[in-house]
């Protein structure tokens, strides 16, 4: 049993608590509590009035039971009674109970407020403090309403005791935080600011918290506090450690107050008044000087207090960002911390240096610590510190040290913590691009990046490298060569295959002269990776193959063989199958000049802000990326797969001026791929998927477009529609197609010379209705109809695109049953 002191102690309470602690089980505890509650109830109910002591005791017990997690629904009245007691202990317990267990009972709140009011107006400082603490602890709106006007008066009254002033300042701060609209400083402002001049350090410390909070909301009203704060700070800083006796903490004069003053100053720009500014600079210099002095004590508290002031001073210097001299000094002092024993100090130093690096004055100074930071990145045990080191490296990077830093980061990537890898990859990619002097270095770096941390390389990174290679002629040959070499590794990452497929497909001819990288070798190399890749990559590789056919006609037969194999032409994946079929047909039918036009080299991308940078910004949240890189971001090249303005197929081919025109401007040439997409008609949009697939070489782009098309399909799938052969069917009414699997079939056959009228007859003979003015190309025929079978009705849509010059046509049939569309196709093919 705990010792019970005679004076204030409550024996009953001590016994009860020790009983509870000795309970063997939860059930026993509940029993004991029930018993005690019944006892207290009978005591409160009892006829004879309780004396203050027993009231206090029972209220204490109730409080204890409540803190154990049981509901208390009585005793509030007794606690309120205690508030009006004259004994400190009883009053204190009353306030304690009220602050812990207050509920919004209107009747009770009135009584409590009354009691608080009485205490506030009493001349007893202890009671006033108790009341203020209660208001601050509860901090409810009702309390704020009742006392928000009263407290500032107490705070600035001349005859208020210091301790009460302290409490009042903090209480007001709390009320201001919970309900700012009720705390109106107005007339009190200047007098509150002048509390900074108070004799009592405690009052100043309390007041400065309030002022900081208030001045963040309305800085103009509290502007005068700057000069006062500066003078106060200079007095503290220049005082000997023995001057402020009670407020000297391990030989550091008033560390908390100094920190708060420095933080308050960070709310304002540098003071305009020269004298004040001079004094402040002097102060900051003194702080920096003091930090250099040998420690007066070996205790950790001494160094903690000193460093706290130093870091706060440095962040003020960074905030002002106008004193090159101070900035450099700050940087040098932080440099010392970089190798400090304390992990926390190293962390803080790295963090502050990050902000220093973005200042033009101290950037150079920060750069001198590069070796230390790199070392920290490699040897630091704490991952959060390593993360800061990586941030700092990123921040201090510029043209002069980019190569070194990127190399270091790359080498660190191999062992880096998984949680920060993706961010590191982005950073390396950005730095490599931003400070690339020669682009071969850039290509090397990115390929290395993919090799080392392929899993963490996001889409944006490899889009970007392709974008840059396409846009820069001088690097294309080198890129092709490097990629070719990189692909020769036995195991390479899928992203590498993507980049390889793309670049070799575009620029494989640049290295084809070398017998070691002859076209066939290139193809075999790519194809050896084919089976290890996912579907999107395979699709990209197929596009690369068709480009090979164009670049190197000698590989045509080999590639056709590959395309013709069952694993391609009958692939279960619709995308791959379609590509295989179409590319095979394209390669076997089209003449070389058609191929050359269709499979032309990609045009340069428009210049845009780097998407990687956007991604990093998104990842870190706004403000995390320093200002200078934003500026440089502007002059960076366009993006490969940028913003949302590219809708549908229009930007798949950058050179296409308007979406409604022919996709590749092929109308003049052979009409193999003469699809006529129109953005106006959903029907045609759906069909235009085929057109895009034909010539869209970029798999990434194609797959994107393909997705949008699929979305359109999804839209259709939801609707049950009726296709009625009606001549006046407008395209809007045709928002229609009730199919399970979209099935587009393209049949290419020698085009028989034929007349429009004949075609019409044939089509109408099928029972279809001809739709005029649906297709933007007047030469095309668009039909809709319902085929009646015994079991059901099958809606079908049909488009015929004749091209007289090439003597070819393309037929697209779509219906709700794939067998029906196939059959229809065959039928029509026989007809023409």
């Amino acid at each position: 049993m705990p010792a019970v002191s005679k004076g204030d102690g409550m024996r009953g309470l001590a016994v009860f608590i020790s009983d509870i602690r000795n309970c063997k089980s939860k059930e026993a505890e509940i029993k004991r509590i029930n018993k005690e509650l019944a006892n207290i109830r009978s005591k409160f109910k009892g006829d004879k009035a309780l004396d203050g002591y027993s009231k206090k005791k029972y209220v204490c017990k109730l409080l204890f039971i409540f803190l154990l997690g049981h509901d208390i629904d009585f005793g509030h009245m007794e606690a309120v009674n205690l508030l009006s007691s004259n004994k400190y202990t009883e009053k204190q317990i009353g306030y304690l109970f009220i602050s812990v267990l207050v509920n919004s009972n209107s009747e009770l709140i009135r009584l409590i407020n009354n009691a608080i009011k009485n205490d506030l107006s009493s001349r007893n400082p202890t009671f006033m403090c108790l009341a203020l603490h209660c208001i601050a602890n509860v901090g409810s709106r009702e309390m704020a309403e009742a006392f928000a006007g009263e407290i500032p008066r107490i705070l600035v009254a001349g005859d208020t005791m210091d301790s009460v002033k302290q409490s009042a300042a903090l209480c007001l701060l709390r009320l201001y935080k919970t309900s700012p609209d009720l705390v109106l400083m107005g007339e009190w402002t200047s007098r509150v600011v002048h509390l900074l001049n108070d004799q009592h350090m405690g009052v100043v410390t309390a007041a400065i918290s309030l002022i900081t909070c208030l001045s963040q909301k309305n800085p103009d009203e509290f502007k005068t506090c700057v000069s006062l704060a500066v003078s106060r700070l200079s007095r503290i800083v220049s005082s000997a450690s023995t001057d402020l006796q009670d407020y000297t903490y391990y030989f550091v004069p008033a560390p908390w107050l100094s920190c708060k003053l420095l933080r308050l100053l960070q709310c304002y720009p540098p003071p305009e008044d020269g004298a004040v500014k001079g004094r402040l600079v002097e102060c900051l210099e003194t702080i920096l000087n003091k930090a250099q002095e040998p420690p007066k004590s070996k205790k950790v508290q001494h160094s903690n207090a000193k460093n706290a002031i130093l870091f706060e001073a440095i962040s003020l210097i960074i905030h002002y960002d106008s004193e090159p001299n101070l900035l450099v000094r700050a940087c040098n002092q932080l440099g010392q911390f970089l190798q400090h024993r304390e992990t926390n100090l190293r962390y803080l130093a790295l963090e502050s240096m990050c902000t220093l690096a973005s200042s033009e004055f101290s950037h150079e100074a920060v750069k001198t610590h590069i070796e230390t930071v790199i070392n920290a990145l490699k040897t630091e045990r704490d991952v959060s510190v390593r993360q800061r080191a990586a941030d700092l490296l990123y921040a201090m990077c510029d043209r002069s040290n980019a190569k070194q830093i990127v190399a270091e980061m790359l080498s660190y990537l191999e062992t880096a913590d998984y949680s920060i890898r993706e961010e590191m990859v982005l950073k390396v990619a950005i730095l490599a691009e931003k400070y690339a002097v020669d682009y071969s270095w850039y290509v090397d770096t990115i390929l290395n990046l993919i090799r080392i941390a392929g899993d963490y390389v996001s889409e944006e990174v490899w889009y970007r490298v392709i974008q840059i290679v396409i846009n820069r002629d001088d690097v294309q040959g080198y890129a092709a060569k490097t990629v070719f070499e990189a692909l020769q590794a036995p195991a390479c990452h899928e992203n590498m295959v993507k980049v390889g497929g793309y670049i070799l497909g575009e620029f494989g001819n640049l290295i084809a002269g070398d017998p070691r990288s002859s076209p066939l070798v290139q193809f075999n190399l790519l194809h050896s990776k084919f089976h290890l890749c996912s579907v999107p990559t395979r699709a990209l590789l197929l596009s690369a193959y068709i480009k090979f056919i164009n670049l190197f006609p000698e590989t045509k037969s080999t590639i056709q063989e590959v395309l013709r194999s069952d694993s391609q032409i009958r692939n279960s994946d619709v995308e791959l199958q379609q590509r295989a079929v179409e590319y095979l047909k394209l390669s076997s039918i089209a003449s070389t000049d058609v191929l050359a036009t269709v499979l032309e080299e990609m045009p340069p991308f428009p210049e845009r802000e780097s998407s990687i940078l956007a991604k990093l910004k998104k990842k870190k949240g706004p403000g995390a990326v320093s200002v200078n890189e934003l500026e440089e971001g502007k002059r960076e090249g366009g993006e490969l797969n940028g913003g949302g303005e590219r809708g549908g197929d229009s930007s798949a081919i950058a050179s296409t001026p308007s979406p409604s025109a022919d996709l590749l401007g092929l109308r003049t040439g052979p009409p193999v791929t003469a699809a006529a997409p129109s953005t106006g008609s959903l029907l045609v949009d759906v069909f235009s998927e085929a057109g895009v697939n034909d010539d869209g070489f970029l798999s990434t782009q194609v797959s994107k477009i393909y997705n949008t098309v699929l979305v359109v399909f999804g839209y259709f799938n939801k609707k049950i529609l009726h296709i009625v052969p009606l001549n006046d069917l407008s395209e809007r009414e045709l928002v229609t197609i009730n199919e399970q699997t979209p099935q587009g079939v393209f049949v290419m056959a020698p085009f028989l010379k034929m007349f429009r009228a004949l075609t019409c007859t044939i089509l109408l003979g099928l029972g279809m209705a001809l739709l005029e003015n649906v297709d933007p190309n007047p030469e095309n025929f668009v039909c809709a109809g319902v085929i009646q079978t015994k079991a059901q009705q099958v809606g079908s849509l049909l488009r015929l695109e004749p091209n007289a010059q090439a003597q070819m046509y393309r037929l697209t049939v779509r219906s709700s049953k794939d067998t029906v569309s196939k059959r229809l196709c065959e039928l029509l093919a026989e007809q023409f």
Partner: protein
Amino acid sequence: MIGGLFIYNHKGEVLISRVYRDDIGRNAVDAFRVNVIHARQQVRSPVTNIARTSFFHIKRSNIWLAAVTKQNVNAAMVFEFLYKMCDVMSAYFGKISEENIKNNFVLIYELLDEILDFGYPQNSETGALKTFITQQGIKGQHQTKEEQSQITSQVTGQIGWRREGIKYRRNELFLDVLESVNLLMSPQGQVLSAHVSGRVVMKSYLSGMPECKFGMNDKIVIDKQGKGGTTDDPGKSELGGSGKQSIAIDDCTFHQCVRLSKFDSERSISFIPPDGEYELMRYRTTKDIILPFRVIPLVREVGRTKLEVKVVIKSNFKPSLLAQKIEVRIPTPLNTSGVQVICMKGKAKYKASENAIVWKIKRMAGMKESQISAEIELLPTNDKKKWARPPISMNFEVPFAPSGLKVRYLKVFESKLNYSDHDVIKWVRYIGRSGIYETRC
């Protein structure tokens, strides 16, 4: 397939930990402690699933027994095993308490090795176990090789629960019918739910390998006999008009010694009994239950600060019988500040720690009536919640079976030894206890 078995004390310290399968890691012990024993909210479900691991626990006084598994086991089997394990332990060292478990931990591990193999329950018959898991040292045992091999053949044999060559000077048989009656009644006296769960417990001290046959007034058997026999109902003449002639048993389970095939075909219960005490069968009935007591509550709220309670209990059985250990528990509101009780019979007391008035009567004959009235003073609270009025519950013990079950015969046949059914001294006793016997007020 039980993966492991843990025993904890009330603080959650592990007393016994036995893991049978590799899929149960060491952290399972802590998971149960953290999530169940030390849970913020009291865990009421006996089965807890933590990270794809199932914990089945029962509590005996302050001791937690938890079986752990990762597989989809039959939960009823696991609980049956846990209860059996409690029986075995109490048969070996008496009450299950922390002290006893700590003192006998070697024995408990030995038992656990025997009754669970790779998580599959094995022979948990106390009598059989006691033949080869003993509490004496090896030196104290003067078992010969033959005796040891005999134990092996018996335990692994067809009748694993009884050894050969038992001899008693006096062949004696004790048969107890223990029932607990559960009831929930509306304030108006309407039965909302009622059932009896009963057990037939036997103590047999018989020589040799006797074959026993147990008969009771099972409705199916009586009806069959009534059809097959004469028009005169034999059941009626036998029971002599003491209320019901036959009872409908909803479901029953038997000790492993009962020949189930015979029960299925002829509905006769025949068996070779184990030696000593065992539970022959368990059953449950829901129809035509004799409710030994009727509770009539009357609660009146007088204003916000006073409550008047009057409770009458009536005994509803033959006046010649005496009920014992009667206890009525009348819950009081949570803001009770004082209670005055007046009762004609027995003693009544307000127990603040349990929030109830407890009224105890030592003895009460059948067809009698008794009454208690109480005035409860309340402390007005600002809580708007109304009192939930929990039901009045009751405990008692009566010397008959509330289900109406009667033992018709228990025959003993021993062909090899020369004693007959008539030489066996048989004792039959009926005890009806209250289970959850509640009346709403």
